[in-house]
């Protein structure tokens, strides 16, 4: 990320592993030759995906990986129910418990950035649907 003079632009991400203003050369090349398509995912949908996977599968993803999950949710809505989507879950979220706890307002004085109760209901609805389908 740079301005027209080639000066680096400051970045922000809730995920420490994504908070840098650059792109690896492999990704840049894959994008240039059209072999890969990249999407933008902000903090809020990433943390929503973080909560959903934790609640539905008992797997806590790294916040970096939660961005990919949020992208998969976007893509799934676009492609419909028959789509088969493979997500590379590149890391675990144990290291992110502190960040996530603050985001959801479970510790500290900061207000919650997302409604965990609503997410829990959404997660329950998903798992109930799946349970009914498999029956």
């Amino acid at each position, binding site marked *: 990320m740079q301005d027209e*003079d*080639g000066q*680096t632009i400051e970045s922000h991400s809730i995920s420490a592993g994504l908070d840098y203003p650059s792109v690896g050369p492999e990704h840049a090349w894959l994008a240039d030759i059209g072999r890969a398509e990249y999407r933008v995912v902000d903090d809020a949908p990433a943390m929503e995906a973080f909560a959903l996977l934790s609640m539905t599968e008992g797997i806590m993803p790294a916040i970096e990986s939660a961005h990919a999950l949020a992208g998969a949710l976007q893509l799934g809505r676009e492609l419909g129910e028959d789509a088969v989507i493979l997500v590379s879950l590149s890391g675990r979220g144990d290291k992110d418990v502190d960040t996530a706890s603050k985001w959801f307002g479970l510790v500290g004085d900061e207000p919650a950035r997302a409604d965990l109760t609503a997410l829990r209901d959404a997660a329950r609805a998903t798992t109930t649907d799946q349970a009914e389908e498999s029956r």
Partner: protein
Amino acid sequence: MTIADTHRLRADDALERARAENRSALIGYLPAGFPDLERSIEAARILIDHGADMIELGLPYSDPVMDGAVIQEAAKAALLGGTRTRHVLQAVEALSGRGAAILVMSYWNPILAYGPNSFARDLAAAGGAGVITPDLIPDEGADWIAASEEHEVDRIFLVAPSSPRDRLEHVVSHTRGFVYAASTMGVTGTRASVSAATEGLVERTRAAGAKNVCVGLGVSNGEQASEVGAYADGVIVGSAFVRALLENQGDDRAARTALAAVADDLRAGVERARA
């Protein structure tokens, strides 16, 4: 010969002039745009008036990997103050034709963003001598080598104490003007002493074919300039000047006096080095 050519002093001209006086050249670094563009130009004029043979104008960059705390602070302030690449070229123009060769020291990305050929063209048109590119190695510099050849600007690459013989030969063969010998495996900043290995590096760089070798990193006073000036073709000083500006922010007169004092001390140092 165009009008620009008549006053465009190249690095070699400045080094030859110093050599004729049996001394090392004094090269002063200042970041363009600190504390603001006008004051940075004024500061460089003071350095020229007090004996600098060459001025190295730093193009402030957001990722200054070779710079220590002092120059980082000034460059950051220059960027916050709105300094852009074109302002640096304006400063070059304001300073050329005053008897000193004017170099730009820039990390590669701003030049890449500007366009290497356009940068070389505009620098030459502004009366600039050349460019020091600390994070560009000749191996990756084909575009810059072509652009600097076309527009006849010096391209100054760096060597370090760790550079082996074949590396030195490679860098020397692609350099025009002088080779910048980094005295230490570190960043810019004043140091209590200049590494004893520096003289060996200068000798090895000459043995690799370099005509002119100038030493930078860690030189801040006349004593050190005298020591380095005994064997180097040029002595490069940055942080000591920038510190004089930082310590006297808001007091222009004090800043001018401090800059002049640092420059006088350094100039006296290079003059007595071989006396």
